[in-house]
């Protein structure tokens, strides 16, 4: 759980941003907290806020599309935890969030128990942040809520450096970043991410030297 400490402020702020946004579109604070407690995905929840009046099928499709970034993360778990059985890996994949994956990929935690520990630390922070934002939205400075994604981006930047242990990985990371930036010119980030990550890894595997 200690590995999670640096990312908790960002998660708390991002949760507060979601809680404030949920109340602004008409959800009761208890509803916003319920959504965070059950769905536990900021991006999918934020997307759902703009689709509240749509049929469940549209909300499900939106949720899948914005969660596609978890596909390469779930696949990568097999490489990161080679001796862990399939169904245990499935359970751990359900505990994945962007920040959890970043910590695991950077090598800060490498055991199933430690990964579960990161979830144990993040989950209450996310739910508490939502409650804070939903109840205290009028009192919280808008600039603080707007900065939440920036806090998390800085953490990811440090962790990607830690994850690159050799030249090939550094090259693949640079390619992944360039690919995501290029793809985002035409696609939303949530689609650009898995496409860029998979293509960059495939190129990295194909290059012999």
């Amino acid at each position, binding site marked *: 759980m200690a590995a999670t400490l640096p990312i908790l402020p960002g998660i708390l702020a991002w949760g507060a941003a979601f809680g404030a946004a949920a109340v602004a579109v008409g959800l009761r604070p208890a509803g916003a907290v319920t959504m965070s407690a059950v769905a536990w995905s900021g991006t999918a929840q934020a997307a759902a806020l703009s689709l509240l009046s749509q049929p469940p099928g549209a909300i499900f499709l939106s949720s899948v599309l914005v969660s596609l970034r978890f596909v390469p993360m779930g696949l990568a778990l097999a490489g990161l935890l080679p001796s862990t059985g399939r169904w245990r890996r499935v359970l751990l994949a359900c505990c994945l969030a962007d920040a959890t994956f970043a910590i695991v990929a950077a090598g800060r935690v490498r055991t199933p128990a430690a990964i579960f520990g990161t979830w144990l630390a993040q989950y209450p922070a996310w739910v508490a942040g939502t409650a804070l934002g939903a109840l205290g939205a009028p009192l919280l400075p808008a600039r603080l809520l707007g900065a939440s994604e920036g806090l998390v981006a800085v953490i990811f930047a440090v*962790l990607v450096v830690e994850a690159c242990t050799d030249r090939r*990985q550094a090259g693949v990371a640079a390619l992944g970043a360039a690919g995501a930036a290029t793809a985002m010119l035409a696609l939303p980030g*949530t689609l650009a991410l898995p496409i860029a990550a998979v293509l960059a890894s495939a190129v990295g595997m194909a290059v012999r030297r």
Partner: protein
Amino acid sequence: MSTAHLLVVTATVAAGVLLCKALPAALLGARLDPRLARFLGLLPAATLAALVVVSTAGAGSGRLRWEVLAAVVVAAALAAATRHGLLAMLSGWAVLAAELLLLG
């Protein structure tokens, strides 16, 4: 919004998220082909780097946030130069805080 509607929305969102999280892990067996294992070994760095770009741009904003980019560059450069993660994170956050205070 009724409680029943909220519960349906919440369950639907959770189902979409869990499908994307669990399915890839469920499809891969315990013994991996060496080529697949090599590919999966490269995937974390590529995914993380793409995640940095997406979170720097901001979900759905569609524009580059220069203030976040500056903080990200400072943090990454310090992490690479010093290999001291916490110092790099704190420096990046300090850049972000300074920009918020000075630029609004």
